[in-house]
């Protein structure tokens, strides 16, 4: 049987890093900051998690350090776009490149290896009920951020800042402060995503190990229309594609075909969702765009 509980389990395992990063992206989107630096923030999280876990022997400290390091790294985006009013797209791309360079450089200077660092004594996160503790945290984060955005005054103000910064400023809500908070939170979430990636299912660091997951998270934000539940569904779709890919690989499909599957599935989902939205817009306004 192809679709069974095992497949769902492995899909749920695959989605955790995407989900965490995409929630961060959704918060930024809501606050009006286009964050495409998720990939780089995640990669910084991966490296910090592995390095800290290696030197302290505690994966928990690794998780904490990853969250802090990625949050510190996200300051580049916050300062660059909010304070200095730079171009968020260029900054995001530069941050992704910087993260690849910086982590590869540190991998060689600190660990003296090129490509991949893995060691049997590198401590990873324990499994609780078949999942990494960070997976539970990710699911909880969906609920918390959904409530925050829809019910709490902080979330309301965050959305206000994103939709009408001038109006928010007139009411005494500082757009800069909320934007900084959203970007820093996305840093924390991406750091956790990186820790999950590097200390969760596998315990190792390899160059550019995020391999486009941060970009998938960016797409998940678009697909889920920056709603926490929508983002969860989008991440689940990606997780299923990845898990089905692994399954097909076991059935003899070449690895290259299954590697490409998540990206193709994501792109197709994006087509369908925008097409559907356009049809709805056309119906309500009576004008085909």
């Amino acid at each position, binding site marked *: 049987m192809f679709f069974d509980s095992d497949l769902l389990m492995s899909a749920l395992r695959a989605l955790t890093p995407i989900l965490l990063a995409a929630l961060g992206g959704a918060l930024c989107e809501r606050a009006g900051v286009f964050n*495409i630096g998720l990939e780089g923030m995640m990669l910084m999280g991966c490296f910090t998690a592995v390095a800290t876990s290696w030197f302290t022997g505690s994966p928990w400290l690794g998780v904490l350090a990853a969250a802090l390091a990625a949050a510190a790294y996200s300051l*580049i985006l916050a*300062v*660059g776009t909010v304070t*200095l*009013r*730079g*171009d968020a*797209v*260029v*900054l995001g*791309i*530069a*941050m992704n*490149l*910087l993260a*690849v*360079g*910086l982590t*590869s*450089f540190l991998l*060689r*200077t600190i660990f003296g290896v090129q490509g991949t660092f893995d060691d049997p004594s590198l401590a990873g996160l324990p499994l609780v009920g078949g999942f990494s503790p960070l997976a539970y945290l990710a699911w909880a984060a969906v609920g918390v951020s959904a409530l925050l955005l829809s019910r709490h005054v902080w979330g309301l103000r965050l959305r206000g800042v994103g939709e009408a910064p001038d109006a928010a400023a007139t009411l005494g809500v500082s757009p800069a402060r909320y934007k900084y908070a959203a970007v820093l939170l996305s840093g924390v979430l991406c750091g956790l995503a990186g820790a999950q990636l590097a200390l969760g299912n596998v315990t190792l660091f390899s160059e550019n190990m995020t391999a*486009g997951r941060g*970009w998938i998270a*960016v*797409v998940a934000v*678009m697909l889920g229309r920056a709603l926490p539940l929508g983002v969860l569904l989008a991440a689940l779709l990606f997780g299923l594609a990845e898990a089905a890919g692994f399954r097909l690989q076991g059935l003899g499909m*070449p690895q*290259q*075909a299954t*590697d*490409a599957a998540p*990206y*193709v599935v*994501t*792109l197709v989902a*994006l*087509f369908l969702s*925008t*097409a559907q939205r*356009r049809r709805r817009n056309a119906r309500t306004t009576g004008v085909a765009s």
Partner: protein
Amino acid sequence: MAVARIKGAARIKGALRSPVTFSVVAGLVIGALFLIGTGADPLAAYRAVVTGSLGADGIGSTLSTGTSVLGMSLALAIPLRAGLINLGGDGQMVLGGIAAAVTGLYSPLPAPLTVVLALLAGIAAGAAYAALAALCENRFGVPLLVSSLLLSYPATSFASYLVRYPLKEPGSSLPQTRQLPEGVALPAFGTSTVTIGLVLVVLAAAAYWFADRRTAVGYEIRMTGLNARFAAYAGVERKGLTLRLVATSGALAGLVGSIGVLSFPYRFLDGSLTAPGYTWTGLTAALLAAAAPLGTVLASFFFAVLQVGGLSMERTTDVPRELTQVLQAIVIVFLAARLRFPRLRRRKPEGPDGHEPDGQGPAAQKPAAQGEFA
């Protein structure tokens, strides 16, 4: 004459104060801090970068790396001039390389014609695949930034599959095609690794310069980059322009891929086109130059020097060459944040009220900052 000299001086002053200068200097300073941090002598390291890349031993390598870097820089600069970012360069380049390799291996024509055909096949493959990303934006409303990047992954996987199974060299342990037949190669200059490919990309740069400066299309592109809505209002057909620009971009990426296959080692080896990161170096160079044609050539040369010099820096100082990648990214971070050197406030002895003679008081600084990506 005197006016010209004053204008020249003002231009030099403006160039020194531009965010580009600030970013490059800041990048080099931070790079030096990294070097000190690892216990190396920054001056010796930078000297190794320069001598290793521009010395007699390195210049050939710099020019052959520069061929790919300049090709990808142009590929990314052309859409960037209109404010579009094509992130799928890797996929387009790899498909160009595969198309060139297949043509080179199976074409029944004589070798020189096969080389031309292989180049054209590479260009066509890259252009067609990039056009697909442009269609995603035009028809389906998926932003080009995302569609081009997402399409890149299946393309590299597809190429990787081809060279591991159907096109794999029999008996080889590497994921690579057979070597191209005798004579199916770009002519090289003397005994160096620099091929006629360099001439091709320089010609492409010249064509870009001409189109940008002297043609109506170039004007439309620049206007779209400055203000897309205004350009559309003035009659620029946005979707058609996107399609043409992105297809041109992909064509250049495909050209780089086919040049890579038609030069040493004269075959398609999985990962050999994407591993040096030409796409990202190219994007960095295009961003640094704000996609201006001459600036893109200069920035490409600068980054080719860094990339090749990084290797000799690693040999002489034991500092990993990944540092040059860090340096590149830092330059763009600073550039995107639009930081610049503060204006030096000199007190003129004859002007007691501190009046600035060139009429560029602090008020003149704001508008100047707007045109950085022009």
